């Protein structure tokens, strides 16, 4: 029985297989519509989410399965003080697979140690969010056709942005990927991320505060939101939240083939007027998210297309 807690729980080959399955689901959805019939997904969401929870549920329904769960801690036994471990044991009796989001880092790992069914980390605080990374990878693959030889710009909150850390970890396993890390000094990528994934492989990267000066180099621009909930100090959030706002004007020197990704939700870091630019793929990205989650649920439930 496998769980997915960290994107690095999956080998590069396994990720390639998931992407291949997701592409096949997109091409032949009918062949997958009853593959999880009789199976149940429990979505245990201890903090708010729209895309992740709904895309998990949509994924399970499109595989012919069913869903149960809660969407905030107050409507669960956590409000009465039940531990994550106990909840995981109990929910294992009701569901075949669990997707868990929790504000505390490591909670899904704790759940996976106690649950008797696979656990998917659907985001643990500012730590990991492997299914967002799988979504990002499928988006890049579908939009660019490859992972190799890309220059990937990551912009915004690179300190607390869990999607950024996981994406760096995943892309660092492909050939000749270069990173441009664009953030204010206070929100730089933590040293441990660079020490773990970039330095040992001598992966080329540079850090800058200036988006405009580097945008012509990029094949991918991955924008992130400065997240209010990650700050202990409101004043710091207000000072940093408007640091980067992507506008059509800033996109003028960018490559015509560049793709703009965003894990969403956005606040104001991408102007609405960018949405109609053909380089903006962040809404399609959410659709890819459903297909890669379908592929992941199938893998962890060990079901295959007949």
């Amino acid at each position, binding site marked *: 029985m496998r769980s997915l807690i960290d994107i690095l729980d999956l080998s590069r080959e396994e990720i390639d297989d998931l992407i291949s399955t997701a592409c096949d689901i997109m091409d032949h959805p009918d062949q997958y519509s009853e593959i999880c019939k009789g199976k149940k997904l429990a979505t245990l969401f201890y903090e708010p989410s729209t895309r992740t929870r709904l895309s998990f549920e949509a994924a399970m329904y499109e595989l012919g399965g069913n869903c149960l769960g809660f969407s905030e801690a107050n409507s669960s036994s956590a409000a009465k003080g039940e*531990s*994550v*471990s106990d909840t995981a044991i109990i929910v294992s009796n009701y569901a075949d697979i669990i997707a868990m989001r*929790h*504000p*505390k*880092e*490591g*909670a899904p*790992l*704790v759940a996976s140690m106690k649950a008797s069914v696979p656990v998917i980390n659907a985001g*643990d*605080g*500012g*730590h990991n969010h492997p299914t967002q990374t799988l979504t990002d990878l499928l988006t890049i693959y579908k939009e660019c056709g490859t992972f190799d030889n890309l220059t990937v710009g990551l912009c915004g909150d690179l300190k607390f942005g869990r999607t950024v850390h996981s994406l760096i970890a995943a892309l660092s396993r492909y050939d000749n990927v270069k990173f441009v890390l664009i953030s204010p000094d206070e929100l730089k990528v933590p040293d*441990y991320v660079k*020490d*773990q994934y970039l330095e040992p492989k001598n992966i080329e990267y540079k850090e800058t505060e200036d988006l405009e000066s580097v945008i012509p180099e990029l094949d991918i621009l991955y924008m992130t939101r400065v997240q209010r909930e990650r700050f202990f100090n409101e004043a710091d959030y207000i000072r940093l939240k408007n640091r980067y706002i992507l506008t059509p004007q800033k996109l003028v020197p960018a490559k015509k083939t560049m793709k703009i990704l965003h894990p969403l939700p956005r606040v104001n870091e991408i102007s609405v007027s960018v949405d109609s630019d053909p380089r903006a793929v962040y809404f399609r990205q959410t659709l890819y998210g459903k297909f890669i989650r379908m592929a992941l649920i199938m893998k962890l439930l060990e079901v295959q297309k007949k």
Partner: protein
Amino acid sequence: MIIGTIVNGVVIDHIPAGRGMELYSKMKLDRLECEVALIKNAPSGKCGKKDILKVNEEIKINYEILGYIDPRITVNIIKDGQRVKKLHPALPETLIDVIFCRNPRCITSVEQEISHVFRLTDRENGIYRCVYCDAQAEKKEK
């Protein structure tokens, strides 16, 4: 200073000077009924000064703690007044409830019954990270 000879027990030697009491606490030696001696700042040919712990009883040694404090520590097993074994603890791969995660965002900060588990991620620099949140353990004082 003369400390009585141990007949059956353990001598933990080459403890970095000043860290004997920490080891005494972490190994919970205060709970033993037998004679336990902590010698501080004993002269050492190798490192100038060292601490030594002598326990006059066969005890189960937690080598994880010893290796974490300093892999240069030596453990001498004494039987019938003779040293029968000399061991060098290595830097352990995993530490369970030896050090504690201080990250307020970690699940261990709210669920008290979870063991604090750290994994060695950089042997060269002796860096441990929490398995739950990846926070780096605070550096040991040398």
